[in-house]
Structure formats: C-alpha cells, structure tokens
C-alpha cells in the first residue's frame, strides 16, 4: 500500500504547486486542515509562504497545533517543511518575535547584509545548496545543485548535526535541516525542476 501523504493546509501560500509536484510523481496527496485527516496520514508536508507569527496563529486557530506535535514527536511521522514550513519547525523567529514548534533546535533570523548594493533582501532566485551530511532526502542530488529560494528570514541550527544543507548569500545560512523524522528545506523543491522533483520523490520513498 502506498503511503498516505497529507499536505497541511493552514491558509498560507501556494499549495497548488506542491500538490501538483507530488501528483506528477504518482502520489495524490490529500490537502487538508482536518484533524482526523492529518491524524490518518503516514507522512506530512508543511508548506507555507508568508508571515511567521500569522502562520503559527492560523495553525493554533485551526486546532492543528497539538495534532502536529503528536504526529511528529510521538508518532514520529516523516514531515517535510518547505520555506516558511521549515521555519515553523524551529524554536522561534525574529519575524513577529513568535515561538515555533521547536522540533528542531534552531532559530529564525532576518538576513543581515552588509553589501546591500549587491545582496538584496528578500533572497529571491536560484542558489546553490551544499550538502553537509548523508541523507535519504539528498539521494541522487548533486552537491551544489541549484534550488529556487524566496525568503527574507533564515534558519540557523544550534546543533551542527542537524544541518543538512547550507547556502550562501553574503552570509552562510542553513538551507535545509534534518533531525530524525523531521526535514525542513528553505528552498522550494516544487519550483526547482528536476532536482526538486528528485527531492520530493526521495521524501515519498522514505
């Protein structure tokens, strides 16, 4: 039987393209904000574009906070956080000074750029991703592949061992982390052509 993948829909961002990428790989995920549907999932995807504190508020208002904690921490279901979804997995963010899920010991900071002539914020576009550790998620992905980024805040892990990818935009930041069943990517695999497709397929195959 195929794994049941649920994309958590908490009213933030571009779910259509994430859904479509999974569908192209032969998996039709469910898109839901229903506790019972999320409970029934084998794997979860936490997408998201927008404001950190609004996102946490939405998740709580929808009654999804507890079920996500339970699914990830107790039931150890694999979860992929994308962009803002990755950031929500951390302890806290400077964006709205809000507290996150704290699944990964990391915090979210604003880009601090010196050369503002060249390095504009948000960081938008295709940037290279350096692979820092072995991971199923990176199977078949070349080191320094380019992924598509759109973000103004960055994750910084407190434990080096959690860092999966780093990227550079004047300053180095953690562009992906992995801790047990928890995966977060700052870039958008759903917008990153073949290499993104490979990553999503790797998550499906986990």
């Amino acid at each position, binding site marked *: 039987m195929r794994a049941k993948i649920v994309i958590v829909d908490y009213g933030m*961002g571009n779910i259509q393209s994430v859904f479509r990428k999974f569908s192209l790989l032969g998996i039709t995920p469910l898109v839901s904000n229903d506790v019972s549907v999320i409970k029934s999932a084998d794997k979860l995807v936490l997408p998201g574009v927008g404001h950190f504190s609004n996102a946490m508020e939405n998740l709580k208002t929808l009654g999804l906070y507890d079920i996500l904690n339970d699914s990830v921490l107790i039931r150890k279901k694999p979860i992929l956080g994308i962009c803002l979804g990755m950031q929500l997995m951390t302890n806290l963010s400077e964006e709205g000074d809000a507290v996150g899920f704290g699944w990964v010991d990391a915090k979210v900071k604003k880009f601090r750029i010196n050369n503002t002539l060249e390095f504009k*914020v948000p960081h938008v576009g295709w940037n290279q991703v350096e692979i820092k550790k072995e991971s199923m998620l990176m199977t078949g992905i070349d080191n320094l592949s380019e992924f598509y980024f759109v973000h*103004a805040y960055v994750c910084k892990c407190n434990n080096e061992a959690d860092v999966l990818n780093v990227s550079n935009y004047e300053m180095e930041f953690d562009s992906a982390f992995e801790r047990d069943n928890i995966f977060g990517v700052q870039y958008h695999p759903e917008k990153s*052509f073949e290499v993104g497709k490979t990553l999503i397929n790797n998550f499906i195959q986990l």
Partner: protein
Amino acid sequence: MLRPRIIPVLLLKNNCLVKSVKFKNHAYIGDPLNAVKLYNDLKADELVFLDINATKNGTVVSFDLVKEIGEEANMPFSVGGGINSLTQIETLIKAGAERIIIGNEAAVNPEFIGTAAKAFGSSTITVCIDVKKNLFGKELVYTLNGKKAHKYNVLDFAKLMVQKGVGELIVQSIERDGIMKGYDKALVKIISDEVTVPVVALGGAGSYAHLKDMYGFCKVRGLGSGSSFIYQSEMKGVLINYPTPQEKITIYE
C-alpha cells in the same frame, strides 16, 4: 552564489500573448500555455505574466488562465493586471502564482502595498514601475499602459514602495519597450543602488548581449525581457527562445 534571474515577461490581452512597442501596437504572438510548455523545456528561471488591459477595463488577470498556467509551469511565475484586493491576491496564489505584481493600485493607493505585504509576506508582493519622460523631460511613474502620469518622481516612488514593504521592484522603461536596442541602464541603476529589495530590469533588451550589458552595469537581481525571448531577431519573427546554461554564464560572468 545567487545568480540573476533571467525572466521572460509575457503580455496577455484577451488571454492571448501579445508584444508591444512603447506600450502600443500589440502584435499577436500566440497561446500562453504553449509558451509555458516551451519555456519549461528551455528551463526558464521564472516567468512573468501581465494582463495589459485589465486595469483599463476594470477587470483582473483571468483566474482560470492563471490556474492553467500554474498546472503547466515547472518554474515559479508571477502575475499582474488589475489587482487591487487581498481576495484577488489570495485566489491568484492558490492558483499557483508565486508572486503578485501590482501597478496602478500601488500608485493610486500606496497603503495597499503595506496591507498586502503584511497579509502575504513581502516576498509575495512585487511592484512594477513603468517610467516615461513627461513633456518637460522629467521621468515620472505612469500606469494604465503609459497613459496616466502620477506625481511621483521615480526614485521617491521606489523608496515609498520599499517603505511600505514591497519585496521586489520591476523597473520598466516605456520608451524602450519593444525597441530591442538595450535597457535604460541609468534608470535601473538609480533605483537598484538606492533600494534594499531586488530590482528586475525591463524594457528594451533585444539580445542576450543586452542582458549582459545591463548586468555588467548594475548587479540587478533580475533581467526581464519580452522581445529577446519571443523574437528571433529585430526582424521580429516569433521564436520562443531562452539562453542555455552556457549562454547564461556568459551573461552574468
């Protein structure tokens, strides 16, 4: 290393692709979804779609068409045309658009940019600044296909947009549109040097050499063009094209 995005900018009129010269004389190019398929194969960094008649007609870029584009496009894309409400933005993002481009409403009601950036995040909101000299040679912000002048000096307007929370600016020279002789580099640089958000240059490029020339002059984060990527040459035979990875390197190195 982050490289500049090289962005085909595609104009929609009645849901068909067209291309203008100085914002006029729209030539029919073809079907937008066909173009998306071709740009998928060519691995374009990003696409921009602008419905050029939406504001004038009091309508919005077609949600249905954006959804179809979203189903087809393998790359991120932004859309603009007549957008002036949060509900419209939400619908367009759900349809698959990565970013929303606002023109007229930004000039008429700058507060809207603040509201939209707050609701959807700065990186979702782009403002397209169309620039033309008025009769006295002063560069002003125009909207409604270059027909309506606003009181803003271009740089002041750009800074105002950044202050409101915009995530990106497209700086377009109306006078260079479709001319294919190169960007208005000075105009783009004045703005890019003074703002903290990414700037996309638009208007006037007719060849990959023009893209290189612009990037050499000022490290913009995006190089936009219609004509370069839909015409074979200045003879304007339609040929959807895009630089290969090797050609890209020659543009930004």
